[in-house]
């Protein structure tokens, strides 16, 4: 019984904290999946040597620097370049040929974090000799992550793994051609950035900013509860042109969402979807 009371109190404290953060800073974590959030908050408490979640409220409300760090912790994900190589192979073989039928293509990497996925995509588009007709919008709510993404410098220790992944994507070149190694870092070629715009966008609060042909959002929705997932998927459905593509993470699914009917599966294994033409209300409709 006592434990249950503790958990109940913890849930209450979490709600108060998230409400406080939202009203003070405008960052809305109120619809983040609670179990993962609880783990991250526990980590915060251990690090700051605090006993209760409610003690975080004064710290985060009054200390901007502490909040910035908190924000960074909240958005830490461990991702790779060319994560799930088979997905990139399918992107190359099934999606890019279709994208090429448009004269100009806009791509949104939503929740791009530190940018590994964005550079993977840029390399792929370049190899398919299509990059000059593309504009990539890479967005994240976390400015520190965006700064890392903009720099495009990754640990040299990871390059071996990235190279192995790259080689499994039906690669046409050598991964070493796309970065310069110096000290213990690998800097992605400046040329890869030429058609990428990095900018701040918060999926929980911001809205559509342009019509897209392809949206990449892998392993981002899993942080959200179902309400917020549906909100974001609505946003994607609205952003995509008819026939536009949506790529989700391998273990994410539209199956349990409100927009399931708006999309047709292109690859069930890699969760690639295409917005159907039939349901789109055109200017004549």
């Amino acid at each position, binding site marked *: 019984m006592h*434990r249950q009371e503790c958990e109940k109190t913890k849930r209450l404290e979490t709600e108060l904290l998230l409400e406080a953060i939202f009203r003070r800073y405008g960052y809305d974590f109120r619809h983040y*999946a*609670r*179990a993962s959030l*609880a783990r991250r908050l526990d980590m915060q408490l251990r690090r700051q040597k605090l006993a209760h979640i409610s003690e975080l409220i004064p710290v985060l409300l009054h200390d901007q620097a502490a909040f910035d760090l908190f924000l960074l912790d909240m958005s830490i994900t461990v991702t790779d370049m060319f994560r*799930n190589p088979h997905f990139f192979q399918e992107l190359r073989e099934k999606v890019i040929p279709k994208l090429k039928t448009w004269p100009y293509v806009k791509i949104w990497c939503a929740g791009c974090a530190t940018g590994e996925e964005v550079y993977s995509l840029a390399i792929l588009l370049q190899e398919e000799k299509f990059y000059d007709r593309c504009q990539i919008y890479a967005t994240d709510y976390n400015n520190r992550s965006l700064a890392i993404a903009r720099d495009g410098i990754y640990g040299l220790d990871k390059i071996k793994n990235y190279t192995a992944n790259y080689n499994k994507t039906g690669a046409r070149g050598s991964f070493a051609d796309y970065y310069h190694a110096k000290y213990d870092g690998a800097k992605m070629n400046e040329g890869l950035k030429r058609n990428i715009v990095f900018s701040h966008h918060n999926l929980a609060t911001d809205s559509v900013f342009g019509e897209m042909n392809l949206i990449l959002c892998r392993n981002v929705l899993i942080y959200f509860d179902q309400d917020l*997932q549906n909100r974001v998927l609505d946003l994607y459905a609205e952003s995509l042109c008819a026939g536009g593509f949506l790529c989700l993470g*391998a273990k994410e699914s539209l199956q349990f969402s409100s927009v399931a009917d708006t999309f047709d599966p292109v690859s069930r294994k890699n969760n690639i979807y295409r917005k159907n033409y039939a349901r789109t209300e055109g200017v004549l409709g």
Partner: protein
Amino acid sequence: MAEQYRTVVIGASAGGLTALATILSRLPQNYPAPVVIVQHVKEEGTDGYRAVFLGKRCPLPVKEAIDKEPLKPGIVYLAPAGYHLLIEEPGPLPLSVAPPVNFSRPSIDVLFESAAAVLGEQLIGVILTGANSDGSRGIKKIKEYGGYTMVQDPSEAEVPAMPLAAIECADIDAILPLERIGGFLAGIDGPAIPLATTTTHKTKTS
């Protein structure tokens, strides 16, 4: 002992696949609880195979969990390689790509600790063979929150490190060989476990 258990969570590592097959083969059809499993796996993309392998040996459907899918009784859910699997209230199963815990993703501690917080004394936690100590913190929390804790007898485990770490960490309720863990969970061997017969989790109404 609590009156009703609603969910079973199992953690396994090295040697886990055969151990899981032994346990799952003993569970009856229409098992009244969901069974949620974290088994450490190295490579991504090996997912489909494990579910098929275990599904052939278990009367219940076995599947890789998809993010936010409803948790249903009588189904065995496996954490996909490269994702943490958690349990939260209400029902739907969340996945996460937060950093590895105990060098593992999925991590047994992540599943067990989240499940204990939500299910308390309605939870059964089982630790099987393995070469590390993931799951120890989790099984301790399950015990603290009034759940029932079981560990595979280290003397018969293919790799005893994980069971031994769990036993050292918490006051385990039952230390049994694999064969009996299966029977125990099925309620036909050892102390009977009264399982709920109704739907285990409310699905969220929107």
